[in-house]
Structures are given as structure tokens and as C-alpha cells.
């Protein structure tokens, strides 16, 4: 079975301007969304705070839960409902005493719903110090990995490919964050893990295309680079679509079956797989082309 039987000849390079425009629009939408929402929806990993996940034996409502929490002045907490019986309570405070806010929350719930009528499934408390720490680490991780990718590709291919690659990466991360913001998903550590995975995966794609370009350039030194790039992309199209497909299948499974913790993670990966593939074809390579038109590559003269 083959998805792409005949040799395709889509003019990818020709639609360069259109693609750039599309990307810029998407990026603007992403940034706008973040600004409109007033920043990202920082989870307690970064902003600090307390999270309590409770499962009641009987179904109850968000309102009733909020009323109960009002008693200890936590009525403003974010309450998320997973199922008629399961809720997640999030508040930016974390008490200073050793007992902790979670114990207070438990007490109030005990009083309101009765002892033993619920089960605390998960508690997470992040003090402000640790929150700051984690934020720093996360930003460093993303930035360093960008730089590392740039260097690696520049080393294996040429600097211009590295630049193309890293621009594609930055483009991917911005759009993924934008998707997060649009759907108001929480920005937590697992999301950062997803972003880093996408960085690793997206560059994967870029490398496959660049590798083919490199091979073809060596074979046909005199041809116009634009043509070479087009041919290369067309040649690798089958493989690109296929590998994205296999990863896509797997991530969809995670999205539906993985459970609450993995759900948002899988969401970002889904967006990332699409955008990553798109950026490898439509962002990275055009940059190489533009660069070439400005300063021809040394590689061709070998």
C-alpha cells in the first residue's frame, strides 16, 4: 500500500510567500491570545499554590463545593470538574504552617460532606521559592535546547540549515503555546516536557528533509537550489507524512486513554506534530533558500 504512488511534484518553494504569511498570521493569533488572556494560565508548578484532587462518593456540584470552601476563605479557588464526583481545587496560596492548606481543606470538607464521604486522590503544594526555581529551570531548558539544536545542525550540515531549523523550532513553540492559551489549558511542568519533546521531534523532520537536500545538492551542483529543494521535499514527502502519522496515532491514543495527567500533555503533542511537520517543510527550507539567494552556499562547489 502506498499513500503517494507517483512521483509528486508539488511546488513547495513557489508557495513560499503564502506559507510565510500563514505562519505569521498564526503566530500573531498565538501571541494575541496570550496577551488577551493576560499571560499564560500558570499551573501551581510555576506560580506556587495548592492543588487538591477530591473524589466524592456521591455526585456533587461545583457550586456546593465552592460554598464549602468559602468558609475558609478559599471561595476564589479554581475548581475543575473531571466527572460528577471528581474535582480538582486549585488555589494560589500555600499556607506557611506545617499542616498546610490541604489539611484545612480536608477539614472543611469533612465538616460539610461528612467524614469518609470523599477520598483525597492527589495533593500538590508548591511553595513560592520552588515555583520560581522551576520556572527558571523550564525556561533555561527550552532555550538551551534551541541553542543545542542550532549547533548540532550547523555542525552536521551548514549554519544556514541550523538557522532554518531553529526558526522553525521557535515558530513551533510559539504556536503550541498559543494553542495552549486559546484553549486556556494549564501551563505546567508536563507541558514543558511536551514542548521539549516537540523540539526534539520537529528537528527530526527538518533533518530528514535537509539530509535529502544535501544529498541532492551534491549530486546536481549546478541546478537552481529552489528546484533541488522542491525535489527533495517531494521525495521525502512519503516518509514525512508517514512518520508523522505513526506518532500521531500514538498520541491520539494517549489523548483519549492516557488519563487526566497525560491529557494536556497529549494535546500539546498533537498540535506539535502537525506544526512541526509543517514547519520543517514550509519554514526551515525556505529560509535556507532565501539565505542561498543572498549568499550562495560553499557546499555546492565541492
Amino acid at each position, binding site marked *: 500500500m502506498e499513500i503517494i504512488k507517483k512521483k509528486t511534484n508539488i511546488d513547495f518553494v513557489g508557495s513560499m510567500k503564502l506559507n510565510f504569511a500563514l505562519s505569521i498570521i498564526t503566530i500573531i493569533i498565538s501571541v494575541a491570545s496570550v496577551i488577551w488572556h493576560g499571560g499564560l494560565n500558570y499551573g501551581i508548578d510555576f506560580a506556587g499554590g495548592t492543588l487538591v484532587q477530591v473524589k466524592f462518593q456521591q455526585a456533587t456540584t461545583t457550586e456546593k463545593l465552592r460554598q464549602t470552601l468559602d468558609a475558609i476563605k478559599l471561595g476564589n479557588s479554581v475548581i475543575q470538574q473531571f466527572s460528577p464526583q471528581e474535582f480538582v481545587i486549585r488555589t494560589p496560596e500555600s499556607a506557611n504552617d506545617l499542616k498546610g492548606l490541604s489539611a484545612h481543606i480536608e477539614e472543611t470538607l469533612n465538616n460539610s460532606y461528612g467524614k469518609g464521604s470523599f477520598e483525597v486522590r492527589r495533593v*500538590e503544594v508548591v511553595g513560592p521559592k520552588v515555583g520560581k526555581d522551576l520556572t527558571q529551570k523550564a525556561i533555561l531548558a527550552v532555550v538551551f535546547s534551541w541553542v543545542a539544536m542550532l549547533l548540532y545542525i550547523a555542525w552536521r550540515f551548514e549554519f544556514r540549515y541550523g538557522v532554518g531549523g531553529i526558526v522553525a523550532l521557535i515558530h513551533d513553540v510559539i504556536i503550541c503555546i498559543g494553542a495552549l492559551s486559546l484553549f486556556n489549558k494549564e501551563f505546567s*511542568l508536563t507541558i514543558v516536557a511536551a514542548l521539549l519533546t516537540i523540539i526534539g521531534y520537529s528537528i527530526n523532520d527538518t533533518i530528514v528533509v535537509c539530509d535529502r537536500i544535501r544529498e541532492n545538492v551534491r549530486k546536481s551542483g549546478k541546478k537552481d537550489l529552489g528546484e533541488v529543494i522542491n525535489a527533495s521535499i517531494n521525495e521525502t514527502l512519503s516518509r514525512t507524512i508517514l512518520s508523522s502519522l505513526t506518532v500521531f*496515532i500514538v498520541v491520539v491514543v494517549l489523548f483519549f486513554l492516557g488519563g487526566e495527567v497525560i491529557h494536556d500533555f497529549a494535546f500539546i503533542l498533537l498540535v506539535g506534530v502537525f506544526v512541526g511537520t509543517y514547519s520543517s517543510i514550509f519554514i526551515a527550507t525556505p529560509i535556507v533558500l532565501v539565505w542561498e539567494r543572498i549568499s550562495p552556499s560553499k557546499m555546492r562547489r565541492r
Partner: protein
Amino acid sequence: MAAAICLVAIFYLLPSLTDNLPSFWKEHLTKEKIHLGLDLQGGTHLVLEVDTDKAVESTLERTTNNLKETLMENKIRFRNLERKKGNIVVEMQEGAPGSALENIIKEHFPDLEIANSETTAGKETATLRFKIKRVAEIKKLAVEQSLETIRNRIDQFGVSEPEIIPEGIDRIIVQLPGVKDTARAKNLIGKTAMLEFKLVDEEHSLDEALKGNIPEGDTIVYGSNQDRETGRRNSVPYLLKNKTLLTGESLESAQVKISDRFGESYVSIKFNQQGAADFERITAENVKKRMAIILDGTVHSAPVIQERIAGGQAQITGSFTIDEAKDLAIVLRAGALPAPVNILEERTVGPSLGQDSIDKGVWSTIIGALLVIVFMAVYYNLSGVAADGALLLNIIILLGALAAFRATLTIPGIAGIVLTIGMAVDANVLIFERIREELRGGKTVRAAVEAGYSRAFATVLDSHVTTLIAALFLFQFGTGPVKGFAVTLSIGIVVSLFTAFYVTRIIFDYFIWNKKIQKLSI
């Protein structure tokens, strides 16, 4: 060789799959299951911070008292000596020899240095402080001691496989798998447990002191009393002599006992040899006076000393539940924390959520693998089946490696396994697409396979290396669960290089060279 590696992997994997291993296996070969993270088995993860500044403060406080005594013993007069934050300020008497203080310090207090010395109107005022090296030492010691103490307490609490690890200069990570009563565990860990014995000052008036005229050498400490009838707790002030006669360091052991009278729990303590001797002397000197037992700065009780107590045994009573008494005995046995401990981060997962996550994880992996397997078989026909075989091998080796390296499997880690499935086939996709191309180009089966593998190698290597780089950063900068993801992804990718190239190649070669097929089912 492939078979060998596969067998080794299965070796390591078996304990996780079955519980009934033949006994000889358990004794001679590995018997460790895959180590589950806290988010899968349930438990608590705490990040503690030792307040090292307070440790320096209290050491300075002790030194201040010692200095006072030493100066008095050596008949060096001073007008005032007190600790102000991180310094000791000494106001010398008029006409007192200037170097006397220096000499005392050089001889008896080598850790102190004179930061500042002013002479106004003939009176010398010196500011002393710890040398920087000493400060660093105290801080380091405080963390080490806290680590030890917390470890002792947790050992006695009875948690299986706890982990207590220092982090950075003043943090401690505590992991308690399977802990059900998190509040109690936190209480146990965080309690400073400073036990002190001081005499009650019955000569001076408590009321006067409460108004603000505290006699010299005294201090007011509060205790809490529970009214037996109403059950309410109120705060009761005591006027005590400042000097601490005995501390928890003199204890040899502490045990929970139940009193015959009311069936109440109490803690019976036994002093060590020196402590017993001191205790005997103190009780002999102060018969009919009251001695206050102070725990963490709160008066616990202040019984009357009826007689000289030899044998170094005493009781700490006062409306405990049996759990409270047990915990008190634990902290007294393990010793006091040299400095207060703050909880910076806590992550607790209940066991039911953990089990849920395991179930979901297993399902995701199975279904994900199935879908990919079917897809590969349909798209690449028999070659796809070969790739599927490699994939299954990949998973087995991956899990075996996790068990062998005692790596921790977390929820994101399971996601890493599922992701590996998707990415491992990528290598095969690359190779197969290449082979198809070569075949289309007119090469023979042998040549096409040869070309496919060799051309694809560089590409696959590059792309896997970059994913590894990303995983490396994740590992460096991530916390527990995220680290688990980085680990499974990394191992998975490395193994997939092996399975994609080596294993499928063997299968191809077998068919091409041994079976000499002319057409490739791809």
C-alpha cells in the same frame, strides 16, 4: 547476539510480570521489579528546607551564655552582654583592661572574632561574631544532622523504602512511598522536638512578671492546658528560671506506656548515664519545687519534684492520644532537629489514583502498539511485519532496561514508552521508503536493501541524536516525573536504533541470502 540481548532483557523483566519465581531464581538472579514512581504507587514527596540561619542563631545564643559564664568566672567585669541578631555585643566596665576580652576569646572561643571595637567615654564596646568558616560549618552540620534525624524518625515510623536525599546546600528531599497518613508523617518530620527541663521560679510573682517586670535570670514560657471536662485548651503562663538544666540530648530512650489509672498514654523517658546523674542531683537539690518540661518552646507539664530521683527515669504525661504519644517517643528517640524545617513542596498521590494511572498507562501502551503494528503490516506488508517484530523486541528490551537500571517509571514515563513506539517505527519507515525508492529506481532486491540501509543510517542517526539531546535537557532540568519521561524516551530511542537496523536487517538478510527471494514484500 540479538537473541542474547533479548534473553537478558527478559531475564530482567520477569520479576515484574510474575510473583511466583522459583526460589533459586530469587536467590541468585535479579529479583527487582520495575521501580514505580510515587505517582504510580501512591505516596508522598516532600522538599524540605533547613533553616540554617536559625541554626547559626541558636548556636550563637548558646555561645553567648557560655561567654557570660566564662567572663564571670575570670572575674572580668562587663556592664552588658547580649546577642543582637548575628552578633554578640559586649559593653565592658570602665577601666577594665582592654585586652582581657581578647585574651578570653583567643583562649576559650576560637570561633569568635572581634568585628568591631569602639571606645566611648572610656567604656569599650566590642561586637563579636562567628568567623565565616565557622558559620559555614554550622550550616553544613545543621543540614547533616537534620538529615540524620529525619532519617531516624522515618525509620521508626515504618515506611517501606523511603528515600531521604540532600539537595543543594540546605534542602532535603523525602520520598515516602505508600504513606497513608500524610499529615502525621509531615508532623513527625517537621517537629523540632526540642526538649528542655527548667525550674519554675516560685519565689517571684508571676503577675508582676506578666506586667513586664521579669526578674533577672527568668523567662516566661507558655503552656497549654486542656480542661478535662470541657475539653477546651487554654494558654497558661509560667515563670521559669532561664537556665536549661537538661535537654533531650541527655535522653537515652523514650517509650510509650499506658497508665493504669486512666488508661491514658504517656511517654516514659530514660536518661543516659550522665543525664541520670544530673537528674539525680537536680532533683535532690530541688525537692518540693516544680520542674517544667518544655517541648518546642511550650510547657508541657510542670510536676512537683517529690523526692530525689535516682535511676534516671521520668514520665511525660498529659492528654495524649496513643498516636501522639507514639510520635513523641519517636522524635525523642531520634533526637531534636538542630534547626526548624520548612516544607517547600509537597506532592502526594493516593493509592487509588496511582492504580488508575497504571491501568490507563497499560491500556494506552497496548492499544497504541496494536494500532501501529496493524498499520505497519498493512502499509509495508511483510516488511512491515518484520518491523513490528522489531518493535515488540524494542518494548521488551526497554522495559528490561528499566528494571535493570532500577530506573523509576512514572506517568510521563509511560507516555515516553508510548511515544517511543511511535518514534521507533520512524526509523523503519525511513529505511523502507528508501528501499522502495531504490526498487523503483530499478535496483535488485539485494542492492536495494543494501542501499536503503546504508543511506538511511546517517539520517536516522541524526534525527535520533537530536531527540536524545532534547531528552537530555529534560532530564537535567526536570523534576521527578518529568525525569522519568526523559529516561524512558532516551532508552527507547537508543534501543530503537538497535532494533531498527540490526534486527530487521537480520530478517531481511535471512530472506535474501538464505531463502533467495526475488521480490520484496514491501
